[in-house]
């Protein structure tokens, strides 16, 4: 079996060309960050978000993990832009697993993404 056969085509696309990987460039609005390092669970994820008027206007991520983790971070980052900061903690790892066809044994890694988003939401709460 080739390495690629273990991943859905969507995961392969997102892994190969993440558009929101890296750090936020300078810009207007408030800059928040949330990070969870859980190496023993197979993932280390950091999100940065720019917030203006309670809305998330830009998101960037950095992640260490398997292709499912990297692809899921890119996917999530894309869904966050335009959302209200108050809605940040709503992501469900099971929904993410279903959307990207992530195998059940990797759900724990997606929970690390959930935790990083909660940390980001908490940073927003502290800032206000």
């Amino acid at each position: 079996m080739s390495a690629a056969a273990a991943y859905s085509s969507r995961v392969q696309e997102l892994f190969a060309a993440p558009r929101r990987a890296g750090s936020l460039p300078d810009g207007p609005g408030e800059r928040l960050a949330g990070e969870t390092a859980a190496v023993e669970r197979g993932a280390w994820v950091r999100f940065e978000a720019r917030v203006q008027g309670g809305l998330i206007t830009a998101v960037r991520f950095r992640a260490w993990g398997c292709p499912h983790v990297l692809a899921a971070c890119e996917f999530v980052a894309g869904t966050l832009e335009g959302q209200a900061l108050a809605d940040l903690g709503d992501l469900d790892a099971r929904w993410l697993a279903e959307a990207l066809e992530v195998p059940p044994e990797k759900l724990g890694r997606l929970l690390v993404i959930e935790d990083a988003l909660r940390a980001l939401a908490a940073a927003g709460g502290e800032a206000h």
Partner: protein
Amino acid sequence: MSEVPVYLDYAASAPVHPDVAAVMAECLGPSGLHANPSSTHAAGRRASQAIEQARESVAALIGASAGEIVFTSGATESDNLSILGAARAGRERGRHVVTSRTEHRAVIDACRQLEREGFAVTWLTPGADGRVAPAQVHEALRDDTLLVAVMHANNELGVVNDVASIGAGCRDRGVLLHVDAAQSVGRIPVNVADLNADLVAFTAHKLGGPKGIGALWLRERPRPAIQPLQFGGGHERGLRSGTLATHQIVGFGLACRIAAADLPAEELRVRALRERLWSRLEGAGHVRRNGGPGPSVPGILNLRFAGVEGESLALELEGKVQASSGSACSSASAEPSYVLRALGLSDVAAQSSLRLSLGRQTSVADVDRAAASILAAVARLRSLAPAAAIERLA
């Protein structure tokens, strides 16, 4: 047009040498060696002669005599026949076996089977360099030790054990020594007279021969007692019944002749290529070599890049470099390499490791292309990772 991926998985299996493929095809052709080599008619005798010629070539590669070679289906069967066969034949003399935690699964699983049959097995943990020290083995010997099984070269790390010293101590105590030499035969000079071993397993497909054929060398004097694992026909002096696969054996024989002729030059060439690859990859920074310095087979380079997750690296290299993130034989499992774990590496470090193995068809251009692909993959994955990951996951 996209380039063909660079094949750097020779430790898993080497491409069949073109001359070997040709001679095998001839064997299988209409005027080939189709008769049963056990048959007494002319066609059978022709097949039998070809097999005996091949046996001479296989024996010559390891400094043995043809009568000491038993053909099997590969190193896994040779390991099983040797370990299970010797232990079962000698169970009245002793029921203790010594082996290491970094042996190939063929040896580990055979020893586990012996445990189920009532044998005690001492599992040695190699040093951080990946080698089993002779003193470790000798200290583990007991009055009831029947057999020691230690590999010559490790299949993941390439490090070579001092089998001769291990064997000397075993011989002093009247203990049999089995050596899995699948990774060393044909790649470094191997002479069974120097190994102080009683049983040596090896295979064709690691040295340019076909899959499905291997050999077990049994010392002639004194000859170790072995119980066969399969019955029916009494082939191979009763140790391995079953019609001999003429074309496989002929291919194995030619592969051994080619390996013997080319070994001195190939060993140096491949070793130099490996070091070239390492010097290129060192440029990535935060890269460590698994397995210590010292004697090694020429073609294996096992390393790990800090801050790079192994599964992502494998996908990133898809279509560019064909290598192994561990022993190919166990890569169906997502578990980290037990060999690297035995050396004290964490699960994360073991999973981040990459085994690159070079061989006969590897060229300088291949090495440079593979290095460029790996460096690009490592750089991209690190650029995606949190800044502290490289330092913390070193």
